[in-house]
C-alpha cells in the first residue's frame, strides 16, 4: 500500500448507462482488473474521484449499496468539463476511479431504529447508497420513510426505484416537486421539501434522520426536524465541498480544521454546528 | 501632502464619499501600500511620494471595494490613464467617483469629469522609456530561434500566480480566459508552454488598451519583464493605428477598424 501511487485510478468499464433525468446519468462500473475488484470494498456514504484520462477528475459519491457486490454505481449531472466528457461516454468505455474516500454513515449503530431519509434533487444518489444498504438489511430497522423532492417531475432521479419503493409496504415514500414542476399525471406532493416534510410529520421516536440536498434545502430542513423532535445527534447530512485529491492534501475542502474529504463527508448535525460557517 | 489630507477629510466629513482609496505607509521604508480610509481620523495616514507606484485604479472595479460605497481615489498620472481607459470601456461612471489627481509635480488636481482627465492627459502623453525601446530593439534584432529561446528562459520562472493579472486595472473580467476550461485555452500548468500561452493571451487581451503603467511588472514576484510585451504592442499600435492614449472616443484598437488599415503581410 505504501508503495502505491495514490493518484493512479482503477480502470473501470461502463457496464450500463441509465438516463435518470435531463442531464443526469447513472453508470454501472465494473473493475477491469479482477484482483482489484476482489480487494475493493467500501461503505455507505463514501465517495470517489471519477475521471476520463485527458480530461480530468470529478468528485461524486458511490451511489450503489455496499451490499451489492461486483460493481459500483455513480450518478452525476452534466455540469462542468469532466461531467460533460463523462456524459459522452458509452457503455463499454473505460473510465478511471479512485476511492473509496471519506467516512461513512454509522449504519451499524442505527440497528433497531427507524430511518427517515430526506433528499432534494441530485442529492438522492449519496442517499440511495444508504437506502439500499438499509433495505438489503431491512430486518435491522424499524420504519423507513423517504421524503424526496426535485424541481420537476422530470428531474426526479431513480424513477424506477421510486416506483418500487412506493409499492413496498415496508417503506413510506413521500415524493414532491417544486410548485410549477408538476405534470397533470403527478400523484405526489407539490411543494418544497421542508414544508412537505413538516406536513408528512414522521415520528422522531427512536429515529435517525438523514438529509442530503442543496445548502438552501438543508438550511430550512433542520428547523423542521427539530420541530418534529429530532435531536441534533440524530440528524445526519453530507457536505459536498470542492475536492481534488480525496485524502486531505490538496487543501480546498476544509471547513475550519475539518477536511470534508477525510473527516467527512458524513456529519451529524451536532458535529456540523461546531464547524465554522464555511461550507 | 497636506492638500490631499485636507481634501480627503472634507470629502469624508461631508459624506461626499464613503472611502478614500489612497496610499499609506508600507511594510518598509521603500514601499507604500493601498489604504482604504473610511474614517476622518485616519485621513492623516494618507501619504504621497515617489514610492506610490501601485496602480490604485485596480480597486475601482473590485466588487468588495465597491461595496464600501462611493470612493475618492488618489490618482497620479498612471492611475488617471487607467481611469480614462476604464471609463472608455464603460466600467466607471463619472458621478460615482471623486478623482483626486496628482500631477507629476505632486500638485493636487481634482477632476470633475472624465473629459477633464482627457484634456489633462493630452499634455501628459504616454512615452515609452528610451531604455525599454532599446531593449525591445535588441530583442527584435536577435535571430528568431534565439529570440524564442530568450523568452522561454525569461518566462521560465513564471509559476502563474497571476499577480500580473490581479494588479492590472484593465484585467477586470470576473472570469478570466485561463479560468475557463471548456475549452481549455491555456494550460493550467506553469510549464514552458503554459507560461508562453498565458503571456501571449494576456498581452493580446491588453493590446490597444494597455496604458503602460507597469503594474504587471511591478507585481511580478519573479521579476519577469512581461511589460516588454505590452510595451512592444504599444509601439505596434502607435505605428499602425496612430499614437495611443486613453480617450473617451471608445475606439479601442481591437474593437474598431479603418477600411484602409495598412499591413504588408496579407496575400
Amino acid at each position, binding site marked *: 500500500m505504501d508503495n502505491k501511487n495514490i493518484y493512479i485510478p482503477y480502470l473501470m468499464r461502463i457496464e450500463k448507462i441509465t438516463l435518470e433525468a435531463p442531464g443526469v446519468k447513472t453508470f454501472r462500473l465494473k473493475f477491469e482488473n479482477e484482483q482489484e475488484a476482489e480487494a475493493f470494498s467500501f461503505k455507505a456514504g463514501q465517495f470517489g474521484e471519477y475521471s476520463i484520462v485527458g480530461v480530468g477528475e470529478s468528485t461524486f459519491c458511490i451511489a450503489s449499496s455496499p451490499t451489492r457486490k461486483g460493481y459500483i454505481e455513480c450518478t452525476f449531472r452534466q*455540469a462542468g468539463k469532466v461531467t460533460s466528457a463523462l456524459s459522452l461516454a458509452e457503455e463499454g468505455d473505460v473510465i478511471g476511479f479512485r476511492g473509496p474516500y471519506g467516512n461513512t454513515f454509522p449504519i451499524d449503530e442505527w440497528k433497531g431504529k427507524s430511518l427517515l431519509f430526506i433528499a432534494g434533487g441530485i442529492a438522492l444518489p449519496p442517499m440511495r447508497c444508504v437506502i439500499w444498504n438499509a433495505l438489503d438489511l431491512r430486518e435491522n430497522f424499524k420504519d423507513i420513510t423517504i421524503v424526496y423532492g426535485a424541481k420537476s417531475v422530470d428531474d426526479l432521479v431513480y424513477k424506477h426505484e421510486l416506483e418500487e419503493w412506493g409499492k413496498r409496504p415496508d417503506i413510506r415514500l413521500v415524493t414532491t416537486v417544486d410548485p410549477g414542476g408538476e405534470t397533470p399525471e403527478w400523484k405526489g406532493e407539490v411543494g418544497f421539501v421542508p414544508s412537505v416534510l413538516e406536513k408528512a410529520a414522521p415520528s422522531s421516536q427512536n429515529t435517525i434522520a438523514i438529509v442530503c440536498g442543496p445548502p438552501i434545502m438543508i438550511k430550512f430542513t433542520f428547523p423542521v426536524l427539530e420541530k418534529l423532535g429530532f435531536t441534533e445527534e440524530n440528524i445526519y447530512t453530507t457536505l459536498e465541498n470542492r475536492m481534488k485529491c480525496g485524502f486531505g492534501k490538496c487543501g480546498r475542502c476544509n471547513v475550519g480544521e475539518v477536511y470534508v474529504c477525510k473527516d467527512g463527508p458524513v456529519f451529524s448535525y451536532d458535529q456540523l454546528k461546531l464547524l465554522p460557517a464555511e461550507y | 501632502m497636506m492638500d490631499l489630507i485636507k481634501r480627503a477629510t472634507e470629502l469624508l466629513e461631508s459624506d461626499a464619499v464613503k472611502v478614500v482609496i489612497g496610499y499609506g505607509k508600507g511594510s518598509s521604508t521603500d514601499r507604500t501600500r*493601498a489604504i482604504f480610509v473610511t474614517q476622518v481620523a485616519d485621513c492623516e495616514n494618507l501619504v504621497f511620494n515617489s514610492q506610490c507606484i*501601485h496602480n490604485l485604479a*485596480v480597486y475601482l472595479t473590485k466588487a468588495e471595494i465597491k461595496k464600501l460605497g462611493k470612493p475618492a481615489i488618489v490618482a497620479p498620472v498612471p492611475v488617471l490613464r487607467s481611469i480614462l481607459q476604464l471609463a472608455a470601456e464603460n466600467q466607471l461612471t463619472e458621478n460615482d467617483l471623486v478623482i483626486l489627481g496628482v500631477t507629476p509635480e505632486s500638485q493636487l488636481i481634482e477632476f470633475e469629469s472624465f473629459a477633464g482627465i482627457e484634456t489633462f492627459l493630452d499634455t501628459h502623453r504616454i512615452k515609452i522609456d528610451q531604455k525599454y525601446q532599446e531593449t525591445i530593439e535588441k530583442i527584435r534584432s536577435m535571430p528568431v530561434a534565439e529570440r524564442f529561446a530568450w523568452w522561454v528562459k525569461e518566462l521560465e*520562472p513564471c509559476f502563474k500566480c497571476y*499577480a500580473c493579472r490581479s494588479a492590472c486595472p484593465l484585467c477586470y473580467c470576473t472570469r478570466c480566459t485561463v479560468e475557463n476550461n471548456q475549452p481549455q485555452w491555456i494550460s493550467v500548468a*506553469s510549464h514552458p508552454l503554459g507560461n508562453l500561452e498565458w503571456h501571449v493571451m494576456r498581452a493580446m487581451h491588453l493590446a490597444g488598451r494597455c496604458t503602460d503603467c507597469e503594474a504587471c511588472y511591478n507585481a511580478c*514576484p*519573479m521579476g519577469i519583464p512581461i511589460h516588454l510585451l505590452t510595451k512592444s504592442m504599444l509601439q505596434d499600435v502607435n505605428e499602425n493605428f496612430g499614437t495611443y492614449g486613453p480617450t473617451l472616443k471608445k475606439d479601442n484598437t481591437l474593437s474598431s477598424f479603418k477600411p484602409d488599415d495598412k499591413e504588408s503581410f496579407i496575400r
Partner: protein
Amino acid sequence: MQTENYLIRKSSLEKLFTNLIGNGKTIYAPKAKGDLALFAKVDAFEEITEDYIVTANSAKSLVFPRAEKLFSYKKSKENTEINDAASDTFPDVVLWGTRPCDAAAFIPLNNNFNEDTPDIIFSKRSQKVLVMSFSCSRCNEYCFCTSVNGGPGNTTGSDILLTKLSEGDYLAEVMTEKGQLLVKENSDLFEGAPEEGKERNLAQVTTRFNQEEIQAKLQNLFENPLWDEQSRACLGCGACTYVCPVCSCFDIQDEAHGNKGTRLRCWDSCGFGLFTLHTSGHNPRDKQGGRWRQRILHKFLYLPNKSKIAGCVGCGRCGKSCPADINILDTLTALQGEPHHG
C-alpha cells in the same frame, strides 16, 4: 543522528561543487536575476550568488514541482494504458544555499504529503534531494524565523548547514546520513571542526510574536472584522502562496495531446476565488477576507493543532512579494494585540 562538525575552506566550495557535478548531481542554487536571487539549476560555480537574504522563489519546487506528472496515459477505444510516474527516475539533486527557513519548511511539507496517506512521488523526490543550507548572517524587515521556532542558524530540515566564520571559511554541521555520505565522498575537503562557534556569525532576527499565543487566540477568532480589514487591499493573486516554502495546495489537471497525455499535479492557491468554487456556483469562501483567514488559520491554527508545527517558517517572502504589500506580520502582530476570547 548526532550532529558532526567540520571545517570547509572557502576555497574548497568550488571543488565541492565540481565534485558534485562530476558525481552526476543536479545542483540548484541561488542565481542573481536583476535585483533578485532565484533558485535555479546551475551548471557552473560562478553562477551562484552569495548576495541574497532569501531567494525570491522558495526551494519547495524541488520536492513539490509547479507541475508534475502523476501518470501518463495512452488511450484507444478499447484500451487505456497508464504509466505510473512513481516509477520514473527522479534526479539526484543538491540544494545548495537554502536558508535555514527554507530547510525547515521541508518538515511541514513532508507532513502534508506523508501524514495519513503516504505520497510516493513526493517521497521519492525528497529522498533524492540533499539540502545543503547556508546560515544567515543578514536579515531584513520581513524576516521572522525566530517567531516560529526557527533561527538564522537552525539545522532543522538541512542535511548539512554551512555557517560562514569570521575568516571566511565555513563551519559545516552534518545532521543526517545523507549529509555524512557527502562528507565521506569529499573527505579531502572537510577538515576537523573549527574552534569558532556559529553564534556570533548569525544575523539578529527580532522575535515579533509568540506563536503559541497566536495559536491560542486564533482558536476563537473565526468571526472577526480583522480578516476583512487586513485583506482589503488583497488583489486575489497567488503570489504569497507560490513563493511560500510551506504552502502545498494543489490542483489535479489533465493535459491531452491526441490519444496521449498526462495527469498533472499543479500548484494552486487558497487566495484564488475559484479555489473553492462549487460547480453549482456556491462558494464557501466567497470573499477575499475569508481566503486570507484561511491562509492564516491554516498556518497558525490548523497545522499546529494537528502536527504541532506551524505552516510558516518566517521567511517573509509572502510580505515581500505581495503586490499590494499585505504583510503577514501586520496580521500576526495585530493578533498579538487582540484580546483573548473564549
